[in-house]
């Protein structure tokens, strides 16, 4: 692999170096835009004691939910537990440490991690349990709390298309946390539906510039739907 070609050919290679106790930032919202094959590979590798930063934790039996089954996750940093019985159970029983983080704060903490911003202030969570123990500061007569950024040893990302240099575009709302996660991993791994040659993606349409990406792999995806809602045609 020379120059900027970041394509790897196996999931083993894609996650080489992932070890017990590491922090992994995962893209996705619900089951939309989740790096499902990379998650499956983490299960296969059997690494333990992970801190996983992800808005949700999949569902029972799919997505990040499968890492709860064998207790591979020590700690979750998430905004929502709602649709995952095992997640809620492990949380309520205290088996799993969970840092519940407001969704916008979580997004901004990850962005800040990638952008070299160690901390920022937000009104979100002031006066609530989220604000407890955090520095409070007034700007223009309003109270804000200080939130620190998040970086990961690995970031696992699901894109739509990537070129060999690691430039990524996302499809519809499968974008969500993915471009943020991509900026904040010491090693960022992106799995995509299609790999194209450099120059095939319009430079102004690229959501994640390749500078953030270390490895790219082509996968095939189940794309399970959580709430199948339809209207009559």
């Amino acid at each position, binding site marked *: 692999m020379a120059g900027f070609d970041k394509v790897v050919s196996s999931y083993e290679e894609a996650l080489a170096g992932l070890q017990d106790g590491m922090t992994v930032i995962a893209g996705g919202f619900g089951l939309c835009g989740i790096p499902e094959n990379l998650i499956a590979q983490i299960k296969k590798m059997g690494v333990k004691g992970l801190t996983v930063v992800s808005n949700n934790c999949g569902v029972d039996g799919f997505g990040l939910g499968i890492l709860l089954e064998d207790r591979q996750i020590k700690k979750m940093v998430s905004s*929502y537990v709602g649709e995952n019985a095992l997640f809620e159970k492990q949380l309520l029983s205290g088996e799993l440490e969970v840092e519940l983080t407001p*969704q*916008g704060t979580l997004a901004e903490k990850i962005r800040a991690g990638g952008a070299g911003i160690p901390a920022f202030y937000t009104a979100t969570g002031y006066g609530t349990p989220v604000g407890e123990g955090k520095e409070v500061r007034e700007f223009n007569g309003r109270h804000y709390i200080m939130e620190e950024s998040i970086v990961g040893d690995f970031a696992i990302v699901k894109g*739509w298309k990537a070129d060999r240099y690691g430039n990524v575009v996302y499809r519809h709302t499968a974008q969500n946390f993915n*471009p943020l996660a991509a900026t904040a991993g010491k090693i960022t791994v992106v799995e995509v539906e299609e790999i194209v040659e450099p120059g095939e993606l319009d430079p102004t349409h690229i959501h994640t510039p390749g500078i953030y990406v270390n490895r790219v792999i082509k996968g095939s995806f189940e794309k399970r739907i959580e709430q199948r809602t339809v209207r009559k045609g």
Partner: protein
Amino acid sequence: MALSREQIAMRVARELQDGFYVNLGIGIPTLVANYVPKGMQVMLQSENGLLGMGPFPTEDEIDADLINAGKQTVTTIPGASIFSSAESFAMIRGGHVDLTVLGAFEVDVAGNIASWMIPGKLIKGMGGAMDLVAGADNIIVTMTHASKNGESKLLTRCSLPLTGAGCIKRVLTDLAYLEIDNGAFILKERAPGVSVEEIVSKTEGKLIVPDHVPEMQFDEEA
């Protein structure tokens, strides 16, 4: 009689204005989209990264990559835009959304809201709700006025962990529309056939009852 879910949505819809960008929470708030007054345009923001949410898709249109914050499959309207979660909450936190409608377990006379956790019993997580209430000047909370046991959810002080402090000014329950000002609920409207006495009895927090409390009117079928 207490308002139906649909009537709650209809009443909230009257607070819409032409050209409003609106974030509708999961549950009853979502139904508001069905009652946008004719000739009025509003655009729905979904905090997972979509501005310009359309109706549910037909079977043919379903796309796993296009969902709303309730994880439901949706469509986009012409003029929609799609972006990252950071951009989505930049909009929300930055106060660019004109109206936010969301549910709650409790609200109190100080404008506090609790909606994400019942200690030892239930933890849904706050999702985007804390950002939404912190970012919006213009919030309507929809909720039932009391629990099934008759316990008031409109309190002197929220008993559950808060979602936001001092941020709620308008509450629509199944019994009444109220505003919060200066440490009290102010009863502005009552549901059809619901007496002021019933509302008083089911409101634990300080309640100001004006001389005249109009009854909500629903001409439309609900």
